[in-house]
């Protein structure tokens, strides 16, 4: 196991925000296209969705996510930060289970546990490892 490196607070906040926004996007997107028949064409689905207020919530969260994500990626490896977004699968599952009064099955719990384990392993790796040009631009010194 590689030594644990302290992850900057701004990266942690950014990743948490990314998970929250991802959850908002997925749930509101789902609600925007809810009731649209699976047989509808892509164009019909889009036309129905844009009349739904949830569609605009999804779009707003999408834009916010873009700016947040660019901020996270400025400080952290993509291969470090991106796997954390898998935690939004769990939040979405939690919310849909709660709102649809579904039962939590043992297989789903195993799935949740595996995702937590995966994210834990990722969090034990160093958050910023990408190669940086050495003495070409002079901005490689801030690393560490």
């Amino acid at each position, binding site marked *: 196991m590689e030594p644990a490196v302290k992850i900057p607070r701004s990266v942690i906040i950014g990743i948490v925000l990314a998970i929250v926004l991802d959850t908002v996007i997925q749930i509101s997107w789902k609600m925007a296209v809810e009731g649209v028949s699976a047989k509808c064409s892509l164009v019909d689905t889009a036309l129905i969705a844009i009349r739904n207020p949830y569609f605009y919530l999804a779009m707003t969260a999408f834009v916010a996510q873009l700016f947040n994500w660019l901020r996270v990626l400025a400080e952290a490896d993509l*291969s470090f930060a991106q796997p954390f977004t898998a935690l939004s699968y769990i939040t979405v599952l939690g919310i849909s289970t709660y709102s649809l009064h579904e039962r939590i099955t043992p*297989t789903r719990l195993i799935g949740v546990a*595996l995702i937590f384990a*995966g994210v*834990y392993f990722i969090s034990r790796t160093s958050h910023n490892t990408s190669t940086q040009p050495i003495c070409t631009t002079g901005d490689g010194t801030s690393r560490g």
Partner: protein
Amino acid sequence: MAQAVVSLKIFGVMLVFVAMFVESFAQLCLKVGASGGPAVFSPPYRAFAQKSGFLDSSISWKILGVTLYVLEVFLWTSVLHLLDVSVAFPMGSLCFVGVALLCRIFLGEAVGRVRWLGVLCIIAGTVFMAL
């Protein structure tokens, strides 16, 4: 009729791979954009990107990333028309593999055993969640 359904499913699976390929590249572009441009690339790719005027600025990469992302949303919506969510959802986690590979190849990020183990756990998790 049954044959048509099967070939639609195969098309759907192929579309998943295309969508995940596009999403992985979208993420890569956003990372390059966020890191201030092609300086973040591993040497051979860095030289290539810096030679091209368009690819030498970070805003180009951000625009490219967003464009690919929008394309991915359309591809993924099409996938969900063809495949059951229980099949599409775990296959969607292939983008974690794609991103890890691209980051290692193009950006020289340290994607070691622990990081791969994490990715594998996440994929296995999505399979169980979809069961």
